[in-house]
């Protein structure tokens, strides 16, 4: 840093076109102007083109009757509901598959990332092979492969693989008994709540005693016993079982009742998890390798076990490097879930395209779809940033 005032004594002030301070501002203004003109041009183009073609921009259609069915929905939906409701179903489906995908992909990714650094030659090479193959082939192709070549080759509904439970596995999906709440469920839940309070209370008392230096009396263990007692006792006392299991049964064409994990959902989820995990594995490997070797040696010198070294020394430090790129992998996963229609899963994008098509209003519908993905992504990255800040605080 030079002090400008000091130099003024020896040199005249440079002309503005050579003054870095002026130039910096000027460059920024020019870039801003260029971007502004670009955006204005595109917007103007859109508005003019839509005007010329008699297209209107509005969302009045959201209240109209949708008129199409959606195969999978977490909330009750029929063709009589509005387009808005259909859109919500698509959104929930996207959120559901993304959330499951993020959790599973993180688990698998960490596992493979660690495996790549394994001293075991075979494990490391298998993990490396996985990463290279999966990362370098298109997700859409993988989805087709999983759906058409793997899952649809499972036996048909009549020839379902049957496991005790009963659990059925066939090309339409995996069917397990579904929990059904009965009238006594509320009472039982209240008893569980009481049990939980006992556990929390015991914790507090125990920690006070510990601080005071008195023996803890194994209060925690006793409280957990009480909790289990309440849960089991309550189940018997309330009369009718609070939870029943509705087994899947064969219908005319499909398996009805129970909880179903459809093939479309499974294919999409599997594809997203396998694909994203390959990227996460690389992120994790990079993070671990960013931890200085001295840390590992220090941990070994202290006599920590391999697992403890990873858990207590390496991971907490690696996490600081891992989290920012991990966030963008999560965002990719959410966005990639829009390939759902390839395997017949009705996600946000599928419902959006159907809406665009049936209403003849592609621009407003696609704008809405984009805005929704944007909100999901921004929310995801806000959450990850919060988490990132929490772990970064440890840095001195």
């Amino acid at each position, binding site marked *: 840093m030079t002090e400008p005032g000091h130099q003024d004594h020896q040199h005249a002030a440079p002309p503005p076109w050579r003054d870095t301070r002026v130039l910096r501002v000027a460059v920024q203004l020019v870039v801003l102007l260029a971007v502004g003109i670009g955006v204005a041009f595109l917007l103007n183009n859109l508005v003019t*083109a839509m005007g*010329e*073609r*008699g*297209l209107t921009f509005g969302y009045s259609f959201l209240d109209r009757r949708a*008129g*199409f*069915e*959606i*195969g999978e929905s977490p909330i009750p939906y*029929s*063709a*009589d509901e509005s387009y808005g409701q259909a859109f919500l179903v698509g959104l929930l489906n996207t959120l559901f598959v993304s959330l499951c995908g993020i959790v599973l992909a993180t688990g698998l990714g960490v596992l493979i990332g660690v495996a790549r650094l394994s001293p075991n030659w075979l494990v490391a090479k298998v993990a490396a092979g996985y990463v290279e193959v999966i990362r370098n082939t298109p997700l859409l192709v993988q989805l087709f492969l999983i759906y*058409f070549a793997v899952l*649809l*080759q499972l036996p*048909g509904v009549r020839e379902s693989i049957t496991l005790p439970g009963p659990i059925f596995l066939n*090309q*339409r999906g995996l069917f397990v008994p579904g929990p059904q709440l009965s009238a006594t469920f509320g009472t039982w839940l209240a008893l569980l709540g009481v049990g939980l309070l006992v556990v929390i209370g015991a914790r507090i008392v125990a920690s006070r005693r510990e601080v005071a230096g008195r023996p803890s009396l194994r209060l925690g263990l006793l409280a957990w016993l009480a909790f289990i007692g309440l849960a089991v006792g309550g189940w018997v006392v309330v009369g009718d079982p609070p939870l029943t299991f509705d087994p899947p049964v064969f*219908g*005319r*064409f*499909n398996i*009805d009742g129970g909880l179903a994990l459809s*093939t*479309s959902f499974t294919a999409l989820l599997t594809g997203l998890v396998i694909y994203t995990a390959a990227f996460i594995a690389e992120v994790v490997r990079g993070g671990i390798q960013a931890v200085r070797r001295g840390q590992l040696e220090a941990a070994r010198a202290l006599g920590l076990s391999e697992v403890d070294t990873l858990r207590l020394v390496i991971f907490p430090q690696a996490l600081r490097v891992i989290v920012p790129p991990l966030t963008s992998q999560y965002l990719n996963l959410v966005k990639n879930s829009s390939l759902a*229609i*390839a395997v*017949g899963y*009705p996600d946000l994008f*599928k419902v959006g*395209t*159907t809406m*665009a*098509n*049936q*209403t*003849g*209003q*592609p621009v407003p519908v696609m704008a809405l779809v984009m805005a929704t993905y944007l909100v999901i992504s921004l929310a995801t990255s806000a959450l990850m940033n919060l988490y990132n800040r929490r772990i970064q605080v440890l840095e001195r």
Partner: protein
Amino acid sequence: MRRRVVPVSFLLIALVIAACESSPSPSPSGEPSAGESASAVPTPAPPPAEGRLAEVLDRGMLVCGINGSLPGFSFLDSASGETTGFDADFCRAVAAAVLGDPTLVEFRALNADARGPALQSQEIDVLIRNTTWTVSRDTDWGLFAPTTFYDGQGMMVRAADGISSLADLEGATICVQTGTTTELNLADVLGSEGIDFTPLPFGEIEQTYSAYDEGSCDAVTSDRSQLIAQRTTLSNSDDHVILEEVMSKEPLGPVVPHGDEAWFNIVKWVVFATIEAEERGITQDNVADMVGSDNLVISRLLGAEGDLGLGLEPDWVVDVITAVGNYGEIYERNLGPGTAFDLDRGPNSLWTEGGLLYAPPYR
């Protein structure tokens, strides 16, 4: 040094964009002569065209939106490498009428979701893609020329499942292509009869039928003609039956983008001309002899009285019939008894034979 990299890379990007932009533009010669020279009868050039007609003449190429994956209608024939089918031939008919040469067509394969936006953005000159005429499409997408194929929605099921009517489909999973009228009809028809079903939607026609073929769904629904055509592509076509019930009216026809009535009239009259030619007995083989016919209706249709206002060459109908034949010939060649589909003419017969095809007078 580094400063200089930025403007240079901008320049590079600009060059690349310019290169991409210019590539689809018409060939440097730009003359619409390719069309005119192919005409059989030398005639004075039509008055300078405007709008899309001028655009197509200038380009020397008709951009025709098709399905591309539907045997019998528009499908890439593996033997010849040509796009063949009923819809594809109507694209050729329009090209022959406008440019005088049926080969000057750029086929653009569109899936069901993409066809509406393709019309709205005016990137295609005409859409001939087994598209059902509905009021909302007529107002949102573009104008529908006369129906070339009267169809109805059907349901294909496995013969072994013992399904004889729609009512038997209670609880079934049904494959359907998104962005189609069939997706809505399915909900309408089964919903009003109180039949519970699970739709399994796919964006592309290939996946819809391979999912059905693999057993992912119990039935697949679409226009009956499409079901018949697609049945031939299934692994064991004899195992599948199409239910008798017709769930809806599906009039399929060409669509042109909004905003150009002259162009709409051209596409409309190309369709009518093929129908009129069949009614008058003008065929690919005899059209050359018919030109000087004593029958005034026939000679007028073949250009004896000059251009009647469409802005095309007076003998454009001769070009159309020479290129693809009359309606009956187009039908027989692509869908008739000689083909794998063996489709009966049914409602797609001339009005004189109890069908629905009726062309207004050409005068």
